[in-house]
């Protein structure tokens, strides 16, 4: 089995895949990875399928010990990465040997990082997904002493990698109108588009609270609508006028009006913005949002061939590495593809 023992892990780490579909009518939010593109990247690097789960970290990772030889990959926020105190390349596949210490430190760019195991990180599938949803009692806080298991123990024939993706730095966020946009007067909508927003420290998998240079955007005191379904990306205006971008683990329904909805293609970039980051929100047409979604899906479809291209550059070394890992004659890290 491909196993890692947790020696130390940051608060808020959880196992995530692409989440649950079809249960929102029973009060179950879709959930899933905060950065879905990053999840797909790590899957492509390790050769995992689209239903493989990963370990998601916020801001900082943890320390792990390899129980036996295994392959891993990392993706998402650029985090400090070391194996046995030697720095290694982020967003690539690594081979670990029994006893190796893997250390994932702080994020240097972005907010959410991902650690992938062969076949995905094992966790019970509940309502069609391995994603933790802590508020519903699905999954639990991970702690030192826990063991992470891969679904398979496959060791890839080659080590793939991907170069950093520009979306981690995107600061122009696009949104389309939400269902309640007409509750907000034109003046307020202009303010919204002209405002600069800042990510406040009160952020988690449920939502990201924003400060705004314009506004406030509050309607008549305490104005509510009858509870209605929420989509992730909805920008809710709370009673005090604070905008909150509702994220993967948001409530499935809510009664605060929503002014706009971050387009699917920009939601990963929002998730990856660190606290204190400033950005603007531009309202675009739904047609544009759909074509951006199409572009993102094509990029995701293309990840596997991009990752495969990286292995061709050094196919000979990969073969040697794989051989050496199996024979145990030399250590894998002497042949890192960096």
């Amino acid at each position: 089995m491909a196993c890692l023992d947790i020696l130390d892990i940051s608060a808020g780490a959880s196992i995530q895949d692409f989440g649950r579909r079809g249960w929102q009518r029973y009060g179950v939010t879709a959930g899933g990875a905060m950065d879905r593109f990053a999840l797909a990247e790590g899957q492509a690097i390790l050769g995992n399928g689209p239903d493989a789960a990963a370990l998601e970290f916020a801001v900082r990772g943890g320390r792990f010990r390899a129980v036996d030889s295994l392959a891993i990959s990392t993706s998402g926020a650029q985090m400090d990465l070391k194996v046995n105190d030697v720095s290694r390349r982020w967003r690539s596949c690594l081979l670990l040997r029994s006893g190796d210490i893997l250390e994932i430190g702080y994020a240097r760019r972005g907010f959410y990082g991902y650690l992938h195991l062969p076949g995905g990180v094992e966790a019970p599938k509940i309502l069609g997904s391995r994603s933790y949803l802590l508020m519903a009692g699905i999954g639990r806080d991970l702690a030192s002493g826990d063991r992470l298991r891969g679904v398979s123990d496959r060791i890839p024939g080659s080590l793939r990698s991907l170069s950093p993706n520009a979306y981690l730095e995107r600061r122009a966020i696009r949104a389309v109108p939400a269902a309640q946009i007409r509750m907000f007067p034109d003046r307020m909508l202009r303010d919204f588009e002209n405002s600069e927003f800042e990510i406040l420290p009160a952020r988690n998998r449920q939502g990201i609270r924003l400060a705004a240079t314009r506004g406030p955007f509050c309607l008549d005191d305490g104005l509510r609508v009858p509870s209605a379904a929420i989509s992730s990306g909805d920008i809710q205006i709370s009673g005090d006028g604070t905008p909150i971008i509702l994220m993967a683990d948001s409530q499935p329904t809510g009664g605060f009006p929503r002014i706009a909805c971050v387009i699917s293609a920009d939601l990963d970039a929002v998730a990856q913005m660190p606290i204190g980051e400033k950005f603007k929100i531009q309202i675009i047409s739904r047609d544009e949002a759909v074509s951006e979604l199409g572009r993102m899906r094509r990029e995701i479809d293309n990840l596997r061939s991009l990752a495969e291209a990286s292995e061709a550059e050094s196919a000979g070394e990969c073969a040697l590495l794989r051989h050496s890992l199996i024979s145990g004659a030399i250590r894998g890290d002497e042949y890192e593809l960096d």
Partner: protein
Amino acid sequence: MDERRYPEVLAAGECAVLIVFGDRYSLSVNNAVLAFDAEIRTDPFDGLDETVPGIASLQLRFDPLAVDPKRVEAWCRRKLETRDWYSARINRTANSWVFPTVYGGDSGPELAEVADKAGLREDQVIDAHSGAHLRVVMLGFTPGTAYLAELPGEFDIARRKSITPSVPSGSILIAMRQTVLPGCPIPTGWSVIGRTKIETFRPGERNPFLLSPGDSVRFEAIRESDAGSVDLERFWNRRGDGVS
């Protein structure tokens, strides 16, 4: 409510539309939501992912690369015009439930406060609440958490000023003429007047939800000493066609 305005079909992001049937809860508005929901689930369009009933609205989630959102909206408008959804019979078999409930005491620490706000004695609150035939108008907030309507006018009481960090599943919460029955432990600003042992969410089960929108529920007052003998499996075994 401006009757002519509803139902309206609104864009909600690029992957959803929201059909709004009214600006507040009423039996006929919720009827329209659930009847239209049942209709769409019986006769879905290609590309539909799921439908999510709210108290007075229905969200349709779809893949906009599989079906043009403008076509979804046109399809909804056409379908909405085919009949009066506000008086439609809900096209599904709803379950009727009677949940044994312990009111007051440790199970319902805010019973006295609610009685005070409603201008009733505690026993009158229990009689009124347990006598009401309620409907599951929506599931939301957390898995299996049911919103039930509608209580008599005396129960039009505001949420509490402070938030209780966690109340157990099965708590009977009331505010604004509504009852909420949480499917897992939740934080709440609503008043806790009782508790039932019936779980509405069992995460490990293949179909883990006891209730569906449209089900009817009555709470039956029992003594605390009788709570231990409630047979929970009886409830889970008798789910009928109402669960889909």
